[in-house]
């Protein structure tokens, strides 16, 4: 594989993982604008454990992503008191606070960032991303995914159906945080360097963008969105200094033409209908 392609695919892998981290809570109706904060926890966690305690990657990655998930769990309870735009902004604030805390944590380098010696090569990163996609595909076929949508649609009724709304919401939030931490851990291990400034609002917001762009209705949307957002700027390299302006223009026009996102349920329904007709 060419070096360039490897580099681009690595970025794609991280974007895919991040997109699913956003997708999980979004499926339950939560707009998480603080996903970068959880990535930071995973990244710094993996960096710290491999650096200071000499842990192997195999141990450090699960622990670091579990740590991110745990923080998501603990913070999820109070934060999920809020809904809608309030929740979006609460998570936004949360992301800012987490990043600011790491920025001031001198044990992990503070503003100077933190270098790692352990290294996860491109193929390890690809495997991690594929793993996340497979797990998400699996989850999307279960009742858990059904309940995510139910809770998003009508929490009051879901509750009366016996669904633990809070439980589902917190689970989605914490699982999303865990996936983010997982991606963050590999990010650190692959690039051998983490800095708090990287995990900023724009990273969170752009990740949300991947999902909405790809379409939040189906489990394939985040994948499609992440692919688009990774590959389009590459394809636009010819645009030189206009590269990102063209990119933005394209986003706007695309969403104007197809506001429901790239991949939608009806896209599948057409397909399903056809296959149903085939098998009576």
């Amino acid at each position, binding site marked *: 594989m060419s070096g360039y392609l490897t580099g681009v695919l690595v970025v794609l892998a991280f974007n895919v993982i991040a997109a699913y981290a956003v997708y999980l809570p*979004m499926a339950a109706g939560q*707009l998480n604008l603080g996903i970068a904060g959880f990535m930071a926890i995973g990244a710094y966690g993996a960096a710290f454990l491999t650096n200071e305690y000499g842990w192997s990657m195999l141990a450090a990655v699960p622990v670091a992503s579990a740590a991110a998930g745990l923080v998501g769990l603990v913070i999820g309870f*109070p*934060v999920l*008191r*809020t*809904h*809608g*735009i*309030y929740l*979006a*902004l*609460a998570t*936004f*604030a*949360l992301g*800012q*606070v987490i*990043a*600011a*805390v790491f*920025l*001031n944590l001198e044990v992990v380098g503070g503003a100077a960032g933190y270098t790692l010696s352990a290294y996860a090569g491109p193929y390890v990163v690809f495997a991690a991303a594929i793993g996340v996609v497979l797990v998400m595909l699996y989850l999307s076929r279960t009742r858990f995914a059904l309940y995510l949508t139910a809770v998003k649609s009508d929490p*009051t009724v879901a509750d009366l159906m016996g669904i633990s709304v809070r439980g589902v919401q917190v689970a989605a939030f914490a699982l999303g945080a865990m996936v983010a931490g997982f991606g963050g851990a590999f990010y650190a291990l692959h690039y051998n360097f983490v800095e708090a400034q990287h995990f900023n*609002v724009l990273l969170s*917001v752009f990740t*949300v*963008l991947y999902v*909405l*762009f790809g379409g*939040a*209705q189906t489990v394939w949307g985040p994948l499609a969105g992440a692919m688009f957002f990774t590959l389009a700027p590459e394809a636009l390299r010819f645009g030189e*200094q*206009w590269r*990102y*302006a063209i*990119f*933005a*223009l394209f*986003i*706007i*026009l695309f*969403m*104007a*033409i197809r*506001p*429901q*996102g790239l991949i939608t349920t009806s896209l599948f329904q057409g397909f399903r209908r056809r296959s149903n007709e085939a098998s009576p």
Partner: protein
Amino acid sequence: MLTQQIINGLMLGAIYMLVAVAFTLAIGVLNFLNFSLPGLFMVGGMATYGFIRIGWPWFFAIGGALFLAALVSLLVERLAYRRGEGAEADVPLVSSLGFLVLLENLMLVQYGSDQQAFPALLPDMNLRVGGLVIGIAQIISLAISVILVAWLSWFLKRTNAGRRIRTVAENRETAQLLGVNIRRLVPQLFVASALLAAVGGVLFAVNYQQVSPWMGEGPGFKGVAAMIIGGMGSIWGSVIGGLLIGFAEVLSITFIGADVVNITVYGLLLLILIVRPQGLLGKPPAREKL
């Protein structure tokens, strides 16, 4: 020194306040997390700068910038908001963010990534009273914010037009069924909130004598925080929220250090959301009865 710091906080808060009111119109009223507003704030400042640079008198430059911001906002309405009708609620925010990126990059191509010096419109834009320094632009922005806010809250509560707006905020489809001309009303709201944001940008530029493609992000995000702290949809809440954020920022710089600014400002936001999700003056959203 503390008095000066309080003045500093008040003045900084005034800028956030104006942005917060702009956001209140867009988010509280239209239920649209409009990420293009920080961009329009920036357009207010950058375009004024650009027009002045090509030799326009400053009042034409400001007028031109406001006009431009309104125009862009109409495009946002057309391409982001209107098209998103019926799709996922979060969808318009994608393209609104697209607008932010586009505006920033267009300015970047035109003027570069550097912060640019915005010319002083007066020889000294400051009042000096017994060793204290007070920015005139900030006083103007404080006054504009308060007046606008008072007027807006009266308007929304007491007039037919205000009720129409609140109907659109709750349910666009119902509004249409009731004969609200949303094709006219919504663009008007977009223009209004764009003008507020752009005026904020102009005042910012005049006051801090600087503009840059990224100038919208800091005040933009803090303006959102101010709006939420005050209570979404509550106009007076935006005022209080703006001031609170301004003070939190200045006081933590004064007594702790700038490293904790994000922790205190956004921590405050987080705390308020957890303790009182509807914000200080906001009402909890009405819930549909079973």
